[in-house]
């Protein structure tokens, strides 16, 4: 009994960490190139809504997944233009994207499905397939982490991406097109966050609901910071947050106060957010952000 509980906790942790890993690794490509991506939340929502809507019309989760990647990439590209071309404050612009995706899915679902913010329920056989109780997206997340590790440290692209995020002037002097790499980084973050969002709506559940990411984009960002902008550490941070979440779910209705009453659900809900704050307060001191993070590159200033 106890061991089954533990195993289910492991699976639950992996499931809950999956969208975080996709979004956080997405954020890594953006932030390693020097662009703060606080829009992960909105980009996940973009992916989640597009995936659910496309799957509803095409009956293919793969089409849903692909369209989610495209849609989130498109809005990441918009964010990139605003931040790179027009040198907007990246946090402000990212907040704009986040608010956009509080409204846009609601307006679209109102027009398409005459509902206020959710898509129709999808049948189980139209969801992303599972292997050994885990979604393929979860398994691919693991692959993503190791591919990213390789790309970042063992390819010219990774070397250039890191140099652009650390010292864009030096990269420019070495003949690297700084802004092109930054666009690439931000758009990649959109693609990956879009997959994370699609997993929420056509993997973990079977429809899109209003604001269904519920802060996961921000938790992913926190995991990225906690993981010191490195792929494997970031994945471990995501697993930690996923574990906190899994524990939360298992504790509901189980954990009792000394008085014998249930622990109020609100306190359980707070756990991941409190953990994030504690973790950031304790560890950011040792964590060094990419040198040029948040600084637009303007060679003539």
């Amino acid at each position, binding site marked *: 009994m106890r061991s089954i509980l533990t195993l289910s906790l492991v699976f639950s942790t992996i499931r809950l960490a999956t969208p975080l890993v996709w979004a956080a690794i997405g954020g890594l490509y953006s932030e390693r190139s020097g662009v703060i991506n606080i829009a992960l939340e909105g980009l996940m929502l973009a992916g989640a809504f597009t995936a659910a809507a496309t799957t509803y019309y095409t009956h293919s989760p793969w089409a849903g997944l692909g369209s989610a990647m495209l849609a989130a990439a498109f809005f990441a590209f918009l964010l990139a233009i605003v931040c790179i071309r027009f040198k907007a404050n990246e946090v402000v612009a990212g907040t704009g994207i986040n608010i956009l995706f509080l409204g846009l899915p609601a307006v679209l679902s109102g027009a398409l499905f005459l509902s206020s913010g959710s898509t129709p329920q999808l049948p189980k056989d139209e969801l992303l397939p599972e292997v050994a109780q885990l979604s393929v997206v979860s398994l691919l997340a693991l692959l993503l982490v190791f591919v990213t590790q390789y790309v970042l440290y063992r*390819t010219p692209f990774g*070397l250039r991406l890191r*140099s652009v995020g*650390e*010292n864009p002037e030096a990269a420019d002097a*070495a*003949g690297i*097109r700084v802004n092109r790499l930054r666009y690439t980084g931000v758009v990649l973050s959109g693609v990956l966050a879009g997959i994370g969002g699609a997993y929420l709506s056509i993997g973990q559940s079977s429809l899109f609901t209003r604001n269904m990411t519920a802060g996961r984009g921000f938790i992913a960002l926190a995991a990225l910071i906690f993981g010191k902008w490195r792929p494997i550490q970031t994945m471990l941070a995501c697993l930690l947050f996923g574990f906190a979440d899994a524990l939360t779910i298992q504790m509901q209705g189980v954990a009792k106060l000394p008085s014998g009453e249930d622990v109020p659900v609100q306190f359980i809900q707070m756990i991941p957010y409190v953990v994030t704050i504690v973790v950031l307060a304790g560890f950011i001191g040792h964590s*060094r952000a990419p*040198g040029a993070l948040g600084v637009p590159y303007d060679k003539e200033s």
Partner: protein
Amino acid sequence: MRLELRNITKRFGAVLANDHLNIVIPSGTIHAIVGENGAGKSTAMRIAYGFYRADSGEILVNDEVREIRAPLDAIALGIGMVHQHFMLVRPMTVTENIVLGAEPGSALALDLKAAAARVRALSEEFKLAVDPDAVIEDLSVGQQQRVELLKALYRKAELLILDEPTAVLTPQEVEEFFAILRRMREQSKTVVIITHKLSEVLAISDNVTVMRDGRVVGNVKTGETDAAALARMMVGREVLLRVEKPPAKPGATALSVRGLSITGRDGARRLDNVSFEVRGGEIVGIAGVEGNGQTELIEALAGLLPESQVSGSIAFGGRDIRALDARRRREAGIAHVPEDRHRRGLLLDFSLAENTILGVHYRPPAVSGAGSVLLNEPAIRHRAELVIREFDVRPPNPALPARALSGGNQQKLIIGREFELPPLLLLISQPTRGVDIGAIEFIHRKIVALRDSGCAVLLVSAELEEVTALADRVLVLHNGRIAGEVDPAAVTHEQIGLLMTGGHA
């Protein structure tokens, strides 16, 4: 490689940085480009390297017109550049930095081993002694500069542009560096060196181009000119190369530092058991290569470092001030002109008037009365007008944002503000960095006048000339310690240089 700039013009907003420039750099020579700060030297060479694009004009490489739109184009043509601020990615290794942008191996696999071998070979060929696997932030400034040279050589540069390469080097390191440049010339490479140090121009170059106000005002063979003639061309008039000052009349001890040590945030020792005094009416100069503890020393004295990082005693006017914060120290009469005016000294988007009260903004006359929180705008304006008049700040409009001023005028504004305190001790770092010659003379006269009024002055400057010309006593800092004290009137630059590198005079 022969490089020619023909009729190059470049504007930044209202500023005409390059005005129909014509410069010819013959192949296989060392060519110096000299001029004051803001004369347009760096802009011209950044255009040649593709960092900026000229508004009009053309660039010829080996007598052919070439489009250089980005550094990549320049690199492909065999042009390399070492910038004044090194273009190195600090957390990455030497090899990673050198191959950046020209990586060996395929797009899917970076071959760093082969690259490291080539870097090692090049390093040996030019006697540069650089470890390919070291991380940049662990290297000394001189080593970093050699990494920059390697970067250009790795890409088979035939023409190398060096922007103020000696600013960060000791006199001895400069000699070694010049030896490297001569070796490169022997291998028929072309070298362009941008500098404002006339002695170095005469020592190393074959030809000199002199620039002033964005224009070329002279092209001469080095052998046919001298320092005075070059200086005249640079400034457009006769210049005083020495500061006129009467002998100091030192009074009572103002500042007494005993056993001062400073630990950085990273735990490294920045200053190690330093003791000295500064008396009223004298200027004590601190010489040394930048990064040997000068910044930390001044910040510690100004109260800008956390107490936990500082140990030892600092007495001012006979009382221990270690526990006082920056505000209390200023109240006690310690003024501070910081080394980096943009980082520390100014609020660039605030008006000149608002900038003249920084540090005294909380007390009369900046506020209406003791205990008042309301700013007294007429009084602030009055103070600003006073500073602007006394220090000849131009344009003289207190409502302008500080950003709108030239470097020299910004510096005069800061110095004027600090002189208004009025100070009993002035801490002044790099007082004339990035300032034109006219303003340099003005600032030097003001500092001497302040000394003669009885104020104690502690001066830090990376310009050896400035320290020896202004100071009455000179302390040399090396590696966080005082390597020696010298009399500026009786010492040669070589002797100071030896102390700066840890040797003995």
